């Protein structure tokens, strides 16, 4: 009668109990676990617990949900998260009841919880502006939903944090009967603060892009003004909070944190080394070079690229040094001309606070070959160096954002591309560099592959 779909990624600790909990309910005739290529034993455990397991071809919650819907045999579907244990006893019955009684076409589960910053600060204000009809929902971002397959089949899913709000808006626009059901208290993990920015961006994008589609590309002046006001006020508060940081350490990624260059490793594995060398020798414009190199990655999936990055060794003591620097009150970051997919992965691995890099574009988890160059790399009349496209511009942007004077920044880089940023930092470090001029410009040269001596400068 009911199909429960559970999208999962690395949830071996909880998946057994979640599947068992679903199968215990007499209404449930099918449990589908859609795995996003977990690196642990999630798949085996889910199978053993009695679920039908499919592996999603492309990473992302939206695609996993679609995959689950495709193979489901029932008209009534319930989506649950794989990392919540325990669920309140009546979760499934409460979510399914309005569907079974034909009182609703789509159910949004709400629960008393201990988090919800993006809901309160981003989703609700934006919904009030763009979809006043949805502003009454207490948890518009909740992933616990239920609905009719025929309705789900008619909508497109976002493949990121915007998926849940996107479904709610689409159901609303299709004039489906929507009901909010309270299922009790759930211990929900708060997202780390670094993830909140991404989540806010994707949720905002989902709400605003749906609104634009509805009004054929137009957003009225009042709506823009309201969003700008909220944004400005939030920014002001954030700046006040961030002004406690006075010191910053920045690393380049390739040949600095990593003991190798990401693109060179890709070239070696995918066999485009000759092409890459040819491009480097012929193309002198850094922007065109960046764009042409990105084309070489066309068709590669996020997973493949992350695997390549995972194969490159890091400087052994980087995590320890980041931890020490944070203890000393430093804000830590990565500024690289590589790709944000990789720098973010690395940032999480070493525990740094932020990373700035070019954004490789993906469609359904596959690189399109396009690359976006973020505005913080571009010069302005206020730039300290005046270079049109330079890491120093990104450093200056970070300094303004975190209210850190340039002279309180330590920057470590390794090659000619880093001369400017190293030269403008309060203490520039040439790290295992073979570039003679960088060694001349730098405040300190570190020859061994260790960041321990950086701590003495901090």
């Amino acid at each position, binding site marked *: 009668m009911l199909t429960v779909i559970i999208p999962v990624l690395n949830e071996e600790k909880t998946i057994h109990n979640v599947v068992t909990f679903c199968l215990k309910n007499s209404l449930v005739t099918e449990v589908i676990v859609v795995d996003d290529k977990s690196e642990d034993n999630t798949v085996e455990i889910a199978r053993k617990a009695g679920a039908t397991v499919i592996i999603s071809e492309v990473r992302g919650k939206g695609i996993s949900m679609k995959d689950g819907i495709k193979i489901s045999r029932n008209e009534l579907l319930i989506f649950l998260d794989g990392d919540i244990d325990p669920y309140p006893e009546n979760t499934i019955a409460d979510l399914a009841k309005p569907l079974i009684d034909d009182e609703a076409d789509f159910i949004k589960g709400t629960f008393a919880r201990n988090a919800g910053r993006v809901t309160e600060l981003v989703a609700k204000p934006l919904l009030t502006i763009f979809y006043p009809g949805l502003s009454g929902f207490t948890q518009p971002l909740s992933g616990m939903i239920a609905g009719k397959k025929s309705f789900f089949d008619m909508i497109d899913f976002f493949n990121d944090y915007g998926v849940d709000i996107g479904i709610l808006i689409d159901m609303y626009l299709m004039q489906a009967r929507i009901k909010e059901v309270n299922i009790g208290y759930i211990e929900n993990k708060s997202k780390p603060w670094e993830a909140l920015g991404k989540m806010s961006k994707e949720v905002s994008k989902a709400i605003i892009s749906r609104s634009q589609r509805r009004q054929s590309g137009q957003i009225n002046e009042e709506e823009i003004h309201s969003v700008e006001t909220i944004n400005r006020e939030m920014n002001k508060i954030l700046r006040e909070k961030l002004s406690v940081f006075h010191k910053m350490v920045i690393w380049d990624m390739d040949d600095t944190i990593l003991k190798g260059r990401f693109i060179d490793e890709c070239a070696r594995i995918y066999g485009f080394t000759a092409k890459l060398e040819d491009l480097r020798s012929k193309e002198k414009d850094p922007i065109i070079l960046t764009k042409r190199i990105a084309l070489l990655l066309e068709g590669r999936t996020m997973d493949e690229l992350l695997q390549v990055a995972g194969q490159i060794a890091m400087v052994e003591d980087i995590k320890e040094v980041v931890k020490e620097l944070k203890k000393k009150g430093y804000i830590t970051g990565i500024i690289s001309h590589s790709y944000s997919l990789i720098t973010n992965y690395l940032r999480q691995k070493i525990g740094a606070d932020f990373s700035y890099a070019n954004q490789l574009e993906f469609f359904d988890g596959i690189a399109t070959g396009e690359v976006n160059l973020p505005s913080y790399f571009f010069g302005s009349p*206020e*730039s*300290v*160096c*005046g*270079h049109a496209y330079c890491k120093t511009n990104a450093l*200056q942007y970070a300094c303004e954002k975190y209210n850190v*004077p*340039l*002279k309180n920044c330590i920057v470590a880089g390794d090659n*000619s591309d880093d*001369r*400017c940023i190293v*030269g*403008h930092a309060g203490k520039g470090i040439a790290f295992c560099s073979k570039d003679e*001029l960088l*060694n*001349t*410009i*730098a*405040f*300190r*040269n*570190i*020859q061994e592959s260790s960041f321990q*001596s950086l701590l003495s400068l901090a």
Partner: protein
Amino acid sequence: MPKTFYNLLVPVDFTVKSKWAISKAIDLANNFNCNIHLVHVVSSEIFPFIPIEASSIFPYDIAIDLDNARVKLEAMRDTYRHHICGGGSIEISLLQGNKSEQLAKYIEQYEMDLVVVGLSRFNLIHRVLSSVSISKLARKTNVPVLAIRSSGLVSHFKKIVLPLTSEIPVRRLQLATMMARSYRSTVYLVSLRKDANATENILNKALEVIQSLSTIPVQCFMLEGKNLAKSTLEFSKRINADLIMANPLTEFIMPGFWNKLTRKLLSYDSKIPVITIDKNVESNPVN
């Protein structure tokens, strides 16, 4: 404008030289939105570093000096406060003890970025006897010292001359780049034509450093002559330079026995403002 100077120090002795220095410091503060610290040191070895508020508890004669200085400093602050139109402010401090030691301490404690000093026309006594001579200050504090005469009070630095010896003076190049970017100036790299190849090499290297750091216009010149300080001064006069950046090395001492004996640095003979940066902070240590 890039905020690369945050704090400027002007050692004040209430003479006309201090006025020139303060005027220049105000120009810089308005350009870089930075703070000016007017500091007067009452020379006495008896009492240590004390705050201005504590001056009244000291013995009578010292207290009078301190009181007078405090009143004068406060009056100065009130006069010049209105000249600051950027985001900076004027701070005053009254110190006691050895002048150069106290200034060095203050520079380190409050993170000064530049010291601005006024130079009188006849400065023999100053450079021979003064404990706050430019070379001493630059050496002791690692902070650049800008020496100003009344004739150097132009409000811009459009032409910056940077004389080179046989080493790449990274810190001077960085400072020149920053100031040139801010004032939209041209940097003139000059060196003596002793060995044409070596000179060309050093000029090219310095040019490459500047181009790595910025997009400012740079011109390179080989100068004739035997003394770098003298040739630099002649060149600077010829092109109407607004600023010279030197270091307190022997290469920057004017020629002649008497000048060597009295350590007459380029800055003491120049009507053009000169920034002196210690050579020790110009090169980088290798770990």
